[in-house]
Structures are given as structure tokens and as C-alpha cells.
């Protein structure tokens, strides 16, 4: 195999695995890695084959680019979908990612839950709220089939502002925690 063919094969595979990136991003990366291979091969004792052998496989190098850009963009985003997607990707890389993903799912679930209860109270007041029986909290949230008959409601309509405030705070805190975790995680992705 000629040297140029070896470079072309590597760069073609790299381009293929960079699929999710824009064409401009892909071509920029491919051009730079091509320049790296040619420059490295000119060093004493090096050859195209030895330089390519030292590079990560194209799919691994492409994944480093994709993950880096995904996490960088997500760490600036406020979209729960973008942030959750990035945390799920991070979860494939180790325990820290799994921990962040689980916290993200719980955080968003609780935050959305508080807001849903507040909104449900305005639409179907008898099916949303907090109920106690014999001094014990027996139900809290929004219910389709009603609540225990002997329980009495506490908080009343006050659960609306409470739910909105707690929900907003939980969603904001979750978003901040995910963005911070993503930024921290970027520093540990490199391969030495």
C-alpha cells in the first residue's frame, strides 16, 4: 500500500466516524489530522505507517472529537434534552458519568413534578395537593383517582406558589450541577 493510500484510508474512516458533525467541522478535522500525519512522518525514524499506527483508531479519535464538542455545547446549554443527552453519553465513560446521569434524571423529574403539581392544582384542585391523616402525611402530588377519604388537605392553594418555587429551584440547581459536571468531566477525557 502506498503512503498516500494509507493516509487516505485513515482519513476516509475518520471522516465517516465524524458523521454527526457539520461538513465544515469534519473537513477541518480531517485536514488537520492529515497535516499531522505528514508532518510526523517527516521526523527522523518515522514513516506514514508508524505514525498511523501510533494514532488512535479512527473511530476512537472521532469519538473524542464528537464527545468533546457534544459536552462543550451542552455545558453552555440550558435545554434539558441537550444536557440529558450529554450526561447519558458521559455515563458510557465511567462511574462519574453514571452518577451525573442519575442525579440529572432525578433532579429534572423532581423539578418537573413540583411544577406539574402546582399547575394541576389550578386545573383540578381536588386532585392535587398534600394530605395528612392522623398527623401523618399520606399523599402529596397530583392524583388521577383521588386521595384517601379520611385524609384532610393541608397547604390548600398555597401549594401553587410553593410548587412553582421549589420546582424552579430544583430545575435551576439541576441545570447548574449538570453544566458544572460536564465542564469538569472534559478535563479527564484525554488519553495519555
Amino acid at each position, binding site marked *: 500500500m502506498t503512503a498516500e493510500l494509507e493516509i487516505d484510508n485513515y482519513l476516509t474512516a475518520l471522516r465517516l466516524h465524524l458523521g454527526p458533525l457539520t461538513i465544515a467541522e469534519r473537513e477541518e*478535522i480531517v485536514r*488537520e*489530522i492529515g*497535516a499531522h500525519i*505528514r508532518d510526523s512522518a517527516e521526523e527522523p525514524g518515522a514513516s506514514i505507517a508508524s505514525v498511523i499506527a501510533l494514532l488512535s483508531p479512527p473511530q476512537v479519535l472521532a469519538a473524542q472529537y464528537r464527545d*468533546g464538542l457534544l459536552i462543550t*455545547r451542552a455545558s453552555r446549554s440550558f435545554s434539558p434534552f441537550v444536557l440529558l443527552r450529554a450526561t447519558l453519553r458521559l455515563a458510557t465513560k465511567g462511574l462519574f458519568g453514571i452518577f451525573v446521569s442519575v442525579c440529572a434524571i432525578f433532579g429534572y423529574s423532581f423539578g418537573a413534578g413540583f411544577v406539574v403539581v402546582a399547575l394541576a392544582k389550578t386545573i383540578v384542585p381536588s386532585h392535587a395537593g398534600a394530605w395528612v391523616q392522623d398527623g401523618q402525611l399520606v399523599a402529596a402530588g397530583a392524583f388521577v383517582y383521588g386521595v384517601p377519604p379520611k385524609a384532610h388537605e393541608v397547604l390548600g392553594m398555597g401549594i401553587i406558589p410553593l410548587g412553582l418555587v421549589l420546582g424552579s429551584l430544583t430545575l435551576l440547581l439541576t441545570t447548574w450541577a449538570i453544566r458544572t459536571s460536564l465542564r469538569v468531566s472534559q*478535563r*479527564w477525557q484525554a488519553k*495519555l
Partner: protein
Amino acid sequence: MAKLRANPAESDAPDRWEAQMRKGALEMAALASLWKKSLYGLEIIRFLESHSGLALAEGTIYPILNRLKAENLLTSEWVEAEAGHPRKYYALTDAGRQRLRQMAGAWLSFSDGLGRLLQPVFEQQEEPK
């Protein structure tokens, strides 16, 4: 593996710890390599090897540079070279210089503190047997 289980002190944990520590400093090292002048990828790799002993797996630096550029800490420019193909030169942006100053300050403070903490360990090593 059996040997590792028999004697945990001989495990590869220190190596992994050192690798994690180096990974944490890699972003700062990449920025620092560009403090004086703009460099292209292979020059950055060789600069880090010669000035800090930080040996990177080939190709690793490029996704990092790409990310730092996406964060507006670096800018890049293709320059025609005598080698016959253009090279992509990276340079620090103002935000990159600012970030590096912050990192350098935090690093010095951290290493000073740890140095004081580890002083007794070094003193004990130097004591004659």
C-alpha cells in the same frame, strides 16, 4: 492479577492516579504552550514533551485544541508552510490568556499547599537509615 490481589500496595493505582493528575493539567499545559507564540499541533505535542515531560498519545491533543477553540480560548489559522501542505496554527485569545492566568494562580496556590503538606514525607525520606 493474582499478584495484585495478594499485595494491593503493588497495584497500578499510583500510575492511574498520576495519569488522572496529568489529564487534569493537560488543558492548562496546552494553553501554556501557546503563551509566547502560536504553534501547530505537532509543535504543541513536542513542546509539551520537551518542556514538561507530558507525553501524549498521538492525536489526543487535537480534540482538546478543538474544544478549547469552541470555548473561544484559542483561535486558529491555516498557514502555508515549506513542507508543501498548510498547517493549522493555534494562538491564545484574550479569554484564553485570562483563563490561563487564573489556572496558573490556582495551580501555584494548590501546589504550594500540597508541598507544605508533603514536607514531612520528604524529610522522612532524607533521614539516614
